[in-house]
């Protein structure tokens, strides 16, 4: 006798808010309906969740690759890709087909295993990191208690992958590019993590949904209570923003792949789909770091104005993501690439001291606010942050301004 499942799992109601959860719910419901064992239902739910995140961000990657080219073209008074389809909408598809069908060249001096592992490994950390970000009030793919720590821990894997790519290629430009990339990533990871510390201190949690939840509500009825609108939050947010540009290897900090100097950095010896994987990893990393910045400082999925609660929260998140990414494009279209010594000096002499100052500022802010001295908190933290900024600016302008270099051998 066949025993049918006694109770079929009830399907949760589909609303606009939990629309992103639809694949997961659907898979779990279907598996429960056909009577699959519990672990299979669980595994199906996990696969569906991961599939949703990867699917959303891979399509966003395709879209961004087009939007970036169009925007940069417009900044340079060009039209950008407009041949494949209407307004070049099929350009990502064309690029993908081209990349897939290209020959995969492995240099004779390369170590094929590491050479193969590097592009695979470089895609993993951003995907892992994307999993812990809260996209909507009901949609956090993996609500980890230690989400922030997990995010930064996975980010470190990128460095190893970049090193493997540079070293396994058995060529000098990849090696130089990898050394640049690693030193840049290590240097800029410090201000990145330190500027996030203030948020952790104020929230008292490493869980990203908690951090977003803490930023709900409005000051004076219309100013959202995001971390950005506090003195320490503004300072830390700017530092986080600059460090995230460097961490994502974007212009003006895209030295690891500075075309004019070292061909394509650690990606020089890659072709075809492996090269595409590097790009995918880079763009997914960009989404991840921008998403984290939004979560930490821009209130995550919180609406920017009261009375806009009827819009699903994940739409706010993606709108903010689009704005942040557009600002990255704007910066890329504006600023020239910095030199490697300027980059490192900026990280160690400007970013890290400023990031360190935000920690006591956040501590004093929390302490004074908790004791009900709101105005006093402003009066103490603003000078605490502005004074080092002015001092650093003067020092930077006086002693460390960009200098002309005279090469004695080049005459």
């Amino acid at each position, binding site marked *: 006798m066949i025993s049918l499942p006694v109770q079929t799992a009830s399907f949760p109601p589909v609303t606009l808010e939990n629309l992103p959860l639809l694949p997961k719910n659907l898979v779990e419901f279907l598996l429960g309906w056909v009577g699959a064992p519990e672990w299979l239902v669980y595994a199906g739910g996990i696969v569906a969740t991961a599939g949703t995140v990867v699917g959303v961000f891979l399509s966003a990657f395709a879209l961004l690759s087009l939007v970036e080219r169009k925007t940069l073209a417009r900044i340079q008074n060009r039209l950008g890709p407009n041949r494949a389809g209407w307004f070049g909408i099929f350009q990502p598809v064309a690029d993908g087909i081209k990349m897939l069908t290209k020959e995969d060249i492995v240099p004779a001096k390369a170590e094929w295993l590491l050479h193969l592992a590097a592009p695979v490994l470089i895609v993993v950390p951003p995907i892992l990191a994307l999993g812990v970000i809260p996209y909507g009030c009901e949609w956090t793919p993996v609500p980890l208690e230690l989400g922030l720590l997990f995010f930064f821990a*996975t980010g470190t894997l990128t460095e190893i992958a970049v090193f493997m790519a540079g070293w396994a290629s058995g060529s000098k430009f990849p090696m130089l590019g990898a050394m640049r990339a690693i030193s840049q990533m290590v240097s800029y990871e410090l201000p990145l993590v330190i500027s996030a510390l203030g948020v952790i201190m104020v929230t008292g949690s490493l869980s990203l949904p908690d951090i977003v939840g803490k930023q709900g509500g409005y000051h004076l009825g219309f100013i959202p209570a995001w971390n950005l609108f506090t003195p320490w939050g503004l300072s830390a947010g700017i530092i986080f923003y600059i460090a995230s540009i460097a961490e994502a290897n974007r212009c003006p900090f895209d030295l690891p792949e500075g075309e004019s100097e070292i061909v394509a950095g650690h990606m020089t010896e890659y072709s075809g789909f492996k090269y595409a994987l590097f790009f995918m990893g880079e763009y997914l990393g960009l989404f991840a770091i921008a998403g984290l910045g939004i979560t930490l400082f821009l209130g995550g999925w919180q609406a920017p104005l009261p009375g806009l609660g009827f819009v699903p929260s994940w739409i706010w998140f993606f709108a903010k993501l689009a704005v942040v990414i557009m600002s990255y494009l704007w910066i890329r279209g504006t600023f020239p690439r910095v030199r490697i010594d300027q980059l490192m000096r900026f990280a160690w002499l400007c970013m890290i001291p400023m990031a360190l100052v935000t920690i006591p500022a956040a501590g004093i802010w929390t302490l004074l606010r908790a004791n009900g001295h709101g105005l006093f908190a402003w009066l103490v933290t603003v000078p605490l942050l502005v004074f080092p900024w002015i001092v650093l600016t003067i020092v930077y302008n006086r002693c460390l301004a960009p200098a002309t270099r005279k090469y004695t051998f080049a005459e």
Partner: protein
Amino acid sequence: MLPLLILSPLILLAALGAVWKARPVHAALLLALTLALIALLYLAIGAYFIGLVQFMVYVGAVAILIVFSLLITRPGDEAEEISRRPSSLLTGLICTVPVLAVLFISLIRANPPEPAASDAPSATLQQFGEKLFTTHAPVVITVGVLLTAVLIGAALFARGVQGISSSEPFESGKSLPP
């Protein structure tokens, strides 16, 4: 138990590779793999915080540092390393085998107690924070001072302190060409 039985041999294999591989960069990468697997082991047995910290510090900082210094120092050919291997291996084993034996004997004789609870003891972030800044606050401050000193010291060392550093090698009969 199952993750333990899967991860332990993997850790040992990776560590063996790190010890045995003649090419220094391979050894360093295998060390990174070992450390990452140990982090996974911590995660598997329920020490989430320590696992992530291990991943961040060891894989993200220490392994990268080692790899980076290998690149800067440009280690020599591995053929020399391999040619000297038998003699050095003998010395190493003479010292290592007794240590391993002593460890195993004490392990067997200690007769470790049966696990009391199968669930991981609770170690939330809150608990960690409280312990860290109450009981262990002096240690935290000491470690902070130590790390600051290390940061400054390492930076000075690596830059080359004025007066000490010079590009000329020591006057040595065996000094290599640069």
